[in-house]
């Protein structure tokens, strides 16, 4: 699908928006399934690809960018496959996770080389525009080898944006950036998304995705676990049952009292102590001290068991 829209934020009068489609895409390495039957359609705006490390985000991004053949299914950009099709790079830009950059070039030379390789009509102007977009003008004549990680990342983003692609894929773009650089990158992604570009960035940090995109695709263990509006998914994540291990002076008495609590959905008593499942995190942590006081039990230890992002995402698969 190709539509015309007005693009003022990115400084060009009009831009053609593009759609990236994945239909039943799987990728396996021997017996290991890295991506399992993923279907999605990405249109204009910023989309976050969220998932714990090893969920298959990078594999999925590489397939989207035409750097990996799907074992099954097809990835298309405006109806054309991305695999073995260099023509897609006229409309697609990629910023990979690996900090790979020609350190012997200056940022200007690096971005200019990209512009020339794209055969742009005015590569010099395009390079200057892209460098200005990532605010790297002050350091553009220094060798990239002398840059900080965040500056290198910005140089790579400038090179990926030099031909003003309709689709930009970024793999963990905030890795290694300081808070100011993160903010700057987030603003840039917002601007590009608002201008009608299709932006997809991957991250394993919930808060990053929350700040940048309204739409998320959540990957867990190679599968697409959730897809859609971030707030809805976040609510689902917040309201999931929480598991705590409690050690007290009288686990049995505490277990009996806790069972009467509405926020508690299950209690398990064994030699290791008390395992409590709470439907509402906040209500349970507020009520526990009161119950302990009332029952005359001293709580020695309260340990949340499933706070890892992995368990949060796993819950989504079951939800």
């Amino acid at each position: 699908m190709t539509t015309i829209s007005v693009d003022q934020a990115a400084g060009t009068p009009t831009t053609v928006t593009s759609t990236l489609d994945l239909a039943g895409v799987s990728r396996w390495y021997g017996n290991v399934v890295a991506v399992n039957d993923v279907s999605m359609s990405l249109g204009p705006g910023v989309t976050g690809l969220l998932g714990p490390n090893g969920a298959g985000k990078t594999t999925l991004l590489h397939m989207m960018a035409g750097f990996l053949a799907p074992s099954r299914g097809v990835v298309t950009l405006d109806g054309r496959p991305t695999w073995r099709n260099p023509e897609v790079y006229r409309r697609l830009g990629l910023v990979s996770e690996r900090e790979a950059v020609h350190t012997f070039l200056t940022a200007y030379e690096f971005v200019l080389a990209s512009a020339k390789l794209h055969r742009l009509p005015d590569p010099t102007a395009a390079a200057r525009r892209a460098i200005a977009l990532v605010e790297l003008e002050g350091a553009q004549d220094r060798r990239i080898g002398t840059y900080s990680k965040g500056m290198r990342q910005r140089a790579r983003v400038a090179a990926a944006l030099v031909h003003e692609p309709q689709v930009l894929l970024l793999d963990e773009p905030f890795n290694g950036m300081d808070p100011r650089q993160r903010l700057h990158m987030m603003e840039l992604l917002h601007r590009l998304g608002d201008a009608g570009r299709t932006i997809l960035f991957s991250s394993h940090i919930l808060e990053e995705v929350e700040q940048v995109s309204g739409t998320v695709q959540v990957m867990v263990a190679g599968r697409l676990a959730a897809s859609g509006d971030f707030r809805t998914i976040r609510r689902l994540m917040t309201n999931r049952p929480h598991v705590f291990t409690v050690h007290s002076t009288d686990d049995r008495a505490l277990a009996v009292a806790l069972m009467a609590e509405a926020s508690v959905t299950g209690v398990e008593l064994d030699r290791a102590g008390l395992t409590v499942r709470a439907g509402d995190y906040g209500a349970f942590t507020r009520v526990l001290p009161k119950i302990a006081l009332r029952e005359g039990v001293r709580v020695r230890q309260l340990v949340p068991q499933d706070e890892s992002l992995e368990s949060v995402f796993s819950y989504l698969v079951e939800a």
Partner: protein
Amino acid sequence: MSTVSWITLRGLFGRRRFLLLLPLPLLLVLLAVLSRSLGVDADDWGPPVLVGLGLAVVLPVVALIVGTGVLGAEIDDGTVVHILTKPLPRWQIVLPKLAVAAGVSAVTVAVPLFVAGRLADSVRLGLSLAAASAVGALAYSALFLALSLLTRRPVLLGLVYVLIWEGLLSSFVSGTRVLSIQQYVIALADRLAPTELLHGDVSVPVAAVMTALISVGFTVLAVDRLRSFSVAGETS
């Protein structure tokens, strides 16, 4: 100069690996100058220095360092993605890189071989060695460039070809010489400047055809492999 060639050249000369190119050609010239100045008979020092060192070691090793460096080094450090994310037909990436590899290798090897050939016999021998080694540099470069797309250990495989196949097996199994770039270079140089110092084991037509076949065949293979280039994922 194309942008791909420019980046390749900058990458080649910007890495310390390039310094590896210097000792062997210098050694070749040094040995030739020493032998000549000490009055050793050219029939005695010519074959071991010109063929044993120059064509059997300096040419393939220099071509190996450069040929695997023009693309293999970019694949190793991931910078190849920058060139591959451009709407360029893949032959427009492979051919400039091959030209840089063959050109740099040819210059690095042809100059010392010319000097050594001149000192051993004549300017004609020097020129024939330089020309034949330039042709050999093209064939070796095509082979090693394709190797960097076929395997993750192109240098190791290249060394196996140069040392085991060309160096060792060719001495015992004469049939392997038909698939030896070194033998083609000797045959071509011997044809350009017939001399007692060089003994080609394959005929000139075979050498010419095989050199062309290897150069074209491995270039086509490299282009095809680059079309299907896969980036290994962090999760793989």
